[in-house]
């Protein structure tokens, strides 16, 4: 039997005759790769901010950051990733985590070379294999060429592996902060922002990549990633300690800081920045009392005395950190409460009084002495201060408002008030009658505050008149929105002309002219130009002026103060040099006069609280160097375990009181009596009552003990103390571990 099938079977292969071969004739033709195929990296070096997140997430340790010639600035470290293709496994985690969206993976994957050194590659600068980081070529030019050489994508085509906002590992939306609704909040001075809950704070804190770019933008260089990391670990204790390392008023900053850090956040360009301010606020809100939490070591007095004029953020910072370093510190404050502009100038719905008291009482108990209601130049002479103290710090701030310069302002007997004065009077509990209709002139934060405070003074109709457009307003966008929510009218491009008065000199209205914006011809911001014949009259009861403030140097004797009007002459005279109303400082914030340092609004240009604190810290270094003859005192911000032996602990907790102008160390009570457990987030009303009672008991014991005026450290108290020590050492272990991780 013939096997026909066996003979004919092979012939069936003939059916493929003439058909195109299955083989891909590489390299003449290439097979199309999948849409999301991951090949060689490409980095848009202009968009990259050098945060290093790609390198941190890389499992294979394949990415280094190098400086390839980009200038570091506020939101850019100047570093760019270098990928080692002897490590990379094309997992694209670096692309998933890239917050600026600059890194992507192209579909090119073919690269062959005989030199293994060439597999180190700066994406986006040159082709793979050609890169020489050390070359002197203009790298920006190379980047441009590289970008042009990249194949252009057609619309809708997706040939690169790149993550947009909705994909990837990052969450670009911040956890929203709960606020009181506008209609409710104008009824009282209750705090508008409600704060994060523990869970919300956790969710917000895990968004932080920990790159630390924010530090570069913060005037005070706070350790932002560290304290956010501590919140993620739910270790609020060490979070507070990290914050206190260079900010003695964290709760104030947590509520009203201008948060320049958030503009430098890696998320800022493509989404919402991490809510750094709210997270700091959250940490500080966890504690009712900082005394038990902050581990900073207070050095015993070293015999040097420092006088501080003005208990604003700058003055308090200098006071706190100099006290830590063992100086005898005295602050003179003209008002009856400390805090400076943060006390007098910030409305209580943004920054409640309790918060400030909590921080200042901690400082006072630590040994910072504050003389209230003592105006230098009136109650005490500047010369006297200069004679008494080894160094003097001036931080008087800007409290004097500028005149509006309007017709009728001088003649007006009532109805014209500056926003600063209005805020001060309201904050100190005075009753202010602003009538039924109020106009505010100005567009800064003070103007908005003035308007919002006026709104809360009763059923008041408030209008803001501003020369330029709303988008030109220097005030925070949030504040403007808040004001609008509360029903404040904003009239932009309105130039006030004249204040209308009645026979008694009372304000009845304001005349203003509408303006159009014209180019100033120099490329600067547009100027308002009056439109002829557009005068309008707004009937008002009170006019609030908020066009800026200045410092009051009247306390300085004439021989100390010099006004320099241009840079060339400055620094030429002995005494305190000023320039356009600001005190001139150098290096460590020292003025042109020996042993006088200065900081705060009347020194820096940003004029906000955090800059004042930064000035204060700088001056602390300067004063310390000056008084120690060039040697800086070592500061121990979080006491380590080895320091935790009992004697040191006792040192740490002595309590200062001032009596008859002298600083006296009072016998302190280290036992469980003084120190209350304040780690709990919310307290029962009953517990609160108990705390108050305890405090009162302490006060009475203090009084009893204050009779002996010599320094006396407490003897060991057996109960309660050991427990506390254990607790402390635990928290320290934690923070130590954390440091190791880094």
């Amino acid at each position: 039997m013939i096997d026909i099938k066996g003979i004919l079977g092979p012939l069936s292969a003939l059916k493929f005759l003439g058909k195109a071969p299955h083989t891909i004739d590489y390299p003449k033709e290439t097979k199309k790769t999948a849409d999301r195929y991951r090949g060689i990296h490409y980095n848009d070096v202009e968009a990259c901010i050098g945060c290093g997140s790609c390198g941190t997430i890389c499992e294979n340790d394949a990415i280094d950051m190098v400086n390839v010639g980009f200038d570091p600035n506020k939101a850019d470290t100047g570093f760019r990733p270098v990928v080692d293709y002897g490590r990379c496994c094309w997992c694209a985690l670096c692309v998933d985590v890239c917050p600026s969206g600059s890194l992507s993976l192209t579909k090119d994957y073919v690269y062959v070379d005989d030199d293994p050194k060439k597999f180190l590659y700066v994406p986006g600068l040159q082709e793979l294999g050609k890169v020489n980081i050390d070359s002197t070529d203009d790298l920006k030019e190379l980047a441009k060429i590289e970008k042009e050489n990249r194949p252009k994508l057609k619309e809708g085509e997706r040939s690169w592996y790149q993550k947009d906002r909705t994909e990837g590992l990052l969450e670009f939306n911040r956890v929203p902060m709960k606020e009181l609704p506008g209609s409710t909040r104008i009824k009282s001075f209750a705090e508008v922002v409600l704060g994060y809950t523990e869970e919300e704070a956790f969710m917000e804190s895990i968004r932080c990549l920990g790159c630390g770019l924010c530090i570069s933008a913060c005037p005070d260089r706070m350790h932002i990633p560290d304290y956010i990391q501590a919140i993620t670990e739910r270790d609020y204790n060490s979070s507070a300690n990290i914050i206190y390392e260079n900010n003695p008023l964290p709760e104030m900053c947590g509520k009203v800081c201008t948060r320049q850090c958030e503009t430098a956040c890696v998320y800022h360009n493509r989404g919402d920045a991490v809510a750094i301010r709210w997270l700091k606020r959250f940490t500080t809100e966890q504690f009712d009392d900082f005394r038990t939490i902050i581990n900073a070591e207070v050095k015993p007095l070293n015999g040097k005395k420092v006088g501080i004029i003005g208990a604003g953020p700058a003055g308090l910072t200098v006071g706190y950190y100099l006290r830590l370093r063992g100086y005898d510190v005295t602050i003179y404050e003209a008002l009856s409460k400390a805090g400076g502009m943060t006390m007098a100038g910030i409305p209580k719905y943004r920054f409640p009084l309790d918060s400030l008291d909590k921080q200042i009482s901690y400082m006072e108990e630590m040994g910072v002495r504050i003389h209230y209601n003592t105006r230098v130049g009136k109650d005490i002479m500047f010369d006297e201060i200069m004679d008494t103290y080894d160094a003097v710090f001036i931080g008087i701030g800007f409290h004097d408002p500028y005149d509006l310069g309007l017709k009728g302002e001088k003649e007006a007997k009532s109805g014209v008030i500056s926003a600063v004065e209005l805020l001060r009077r309201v904050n100190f509990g005075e009753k202010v009658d602003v009538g039924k209709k109020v106009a505010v002139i100005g567009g800064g934060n003070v103007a908005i505050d003035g308007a919002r405070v006026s709104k809360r003074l009763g059923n008041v109709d408030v209008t803001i008149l501003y020369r330029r457009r709303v988008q030109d307003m220097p005030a925070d966008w949030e504040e403007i929105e808040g004001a609008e929510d509360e029903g404040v009218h904003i009239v932009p491009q309105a130039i006030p002309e004249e204040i209308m008065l009645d026979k008694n000199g009372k304000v009845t209205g304001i005349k203003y002219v509408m303006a159009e914006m014209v180019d100033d011809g120099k490329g600067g911001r547009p100027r308002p130009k009056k439109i002829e014949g557009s005068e309008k009259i707004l009937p008002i009861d009170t006019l609030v002026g908020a066009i800026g403030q200045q410092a009051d140097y009247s306390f300085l004797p004439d021989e100390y103060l010099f006004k320099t009007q241009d840079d060339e002459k400055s620094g030429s005279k002995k005494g305190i040099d000023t320039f356009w109303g600001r005190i001139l400082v150098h290096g460590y914030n020292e003025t042109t006069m020996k042993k006088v340092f200065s900081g705060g609004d009347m020194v820096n240009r940003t004029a906000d609280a955090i800059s004042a604190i930064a000035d204060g810290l700088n001056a602390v270094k300067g004063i310390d160097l000056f008084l120690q003859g060039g040697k800086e005192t070592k500061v121990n911000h979080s006491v380590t375990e080895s320091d935790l032996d009992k004697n040191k602990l006792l040192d740490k907790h002595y309590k200062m009181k001032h009596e008859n102008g002298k600083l006296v160390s009072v016998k302190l009570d280290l036992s469980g009596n003084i120190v209350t457990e304040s780690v709990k987030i919310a307290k029962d009303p009953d517990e609160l009552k108990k705390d108050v009672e305890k405090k009162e008991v302490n006060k009475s014991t203090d009084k009893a003990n204050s009779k002996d005026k010599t320094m006396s450290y407490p003897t060991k108290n057996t109960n309660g103390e050991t427990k506390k020590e254990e607790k402390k050492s635990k928290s320290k272990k934690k923070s130590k571990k954390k440091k190791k991780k880094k």
Partner: protein
Amino acid sequence: MDDLKRPTLDSDFTCDMAFNKITKWAQKNSLWLLAYGTGCGAIELSPTMTSRYDWSRLGIRGSATPRQADLLLITGYLSTKTLKRVIRSYEQMQDPKYVIGFGSCTINGGMYYDSYNTIKQLDLYIPVDVYINGCMPRPEAVLSGLAYLKDKIGDKKADGWIKYKQNFEWYRENQKKILKSFNGDNMPDKYNW
């Protein structure tokens, strides 16, 4: 590694230029490779050798033993145990012989950079003529690597085997650092056994 002797190819060829050209042409167009998959890249060889990409178009085919092979593919990571076998196979191959290193692992450790048991730089132990980028390289990249090697042979630049002979002591020293019991019954301390 930079202080290694640079080999000179011409000294190994005593014949005249014409014959020289013919041998090079023949060598580069009939690369027989040792079918020995050492790492995960061996899986990329199946599509490269079969009809989809069909590397026999380039004159490449597998050989039965190291003694017939011209080309050794190190397809990715190389554990120290495999390294011993690789050295043995490589030294048995007849001159001229070439090595291609696949992917990240052969360059600087790749994703196994922290492994206790894989070598990190292949060219410390055997000379590498071509590296292919990838983890792992796709068949196109493999073919590019092979084409690159062919060009290199044609240009008389594929001189790894001479480098190995001339710097034999240096390579042996590196190998001994990893393979601690090198001088055993299986691993004699001489070349081409």
